[in-house]
């Protein structure tokens, strides 16, 4: 198959979505910076959005998948706002945003 044709296929969309998801998971696991972890979560949510939109076209030819992506976008924005507010609070408490320092409950 021609690579240009492949780009428009369902497979391309799903592969890009999966890779984005894996990269996001990797960022969440490996980053020590809490903002970096948030960036990873945003990548994961975008991957979910790609899959919803792709299936909305290639599987159902109906609008429902896109409505869900809209919901994902709305929730992602709310999540970013709350997460960054939490990070700010954490920073005030600890003077750092290193996730490893968030260990008050441990001892």
């Amino acid at each position, binding site marked *: 198959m021609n690579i240009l044709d492949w780009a428009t296929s369902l497979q391309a969309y799903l592969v890009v979505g999966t890779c984005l998801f894996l990269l996001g998971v990797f960022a969440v696991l490996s980053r020590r910076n809490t903002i970096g972890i948030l960036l990873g979560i945003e990548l994961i949510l975008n991957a979910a959005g790609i899959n919803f939109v792709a299936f909305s076209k290639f599987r159902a030819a109906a609008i429902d998948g896109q409505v869900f992506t809209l919901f994902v976008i709305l929730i992602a924005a709310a999540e970013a*706002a709350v997460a960054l507010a939490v990070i*700010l609070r954490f920073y005030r408490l600890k003077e750092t945003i290193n996730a490893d320092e968030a260990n008050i409950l441990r001892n």
Partner: protein
Amino acid sequence: METGFITAFWYLAIAALVVPLMLGAGAILRPKRTGENKKLDAYECGEDAVGTAWVKFNIRFYVIAIIFIIFDVEITAIFPVATLYKDAVANGTAGLVFGEIFLFIGLLLVGLVYCWTRGDLEWVKGIAQTKPKRGIHG
């Protein structure tokens, strides 16, 4: 739809090329001159710059940005519903759409009133309280 978007992509691509094109044209036209070392310093009204400019700044920008993003997504979500209103009025079913829009705007107003009454929209009030340990205000 697709011819429209391909044209839009042309516009974006050409707009992105404007910058290198202009700078490239300048590179051909202008005389070459190097070595004036002091010129490369950051401009602070003639004084030598003290410390780095990458300093932490006031938190009020941040609270505003948080309020903004919530308002932004809510308004984004109301647009598809708003496009239905004209036809709904023509069909005599405006009530549902109006209720939806009213609810959205109402909830946004509640959020605005909350921020307003709790003083999150005040710019001056925060100065004394939010002074960062090191950094600049503005």
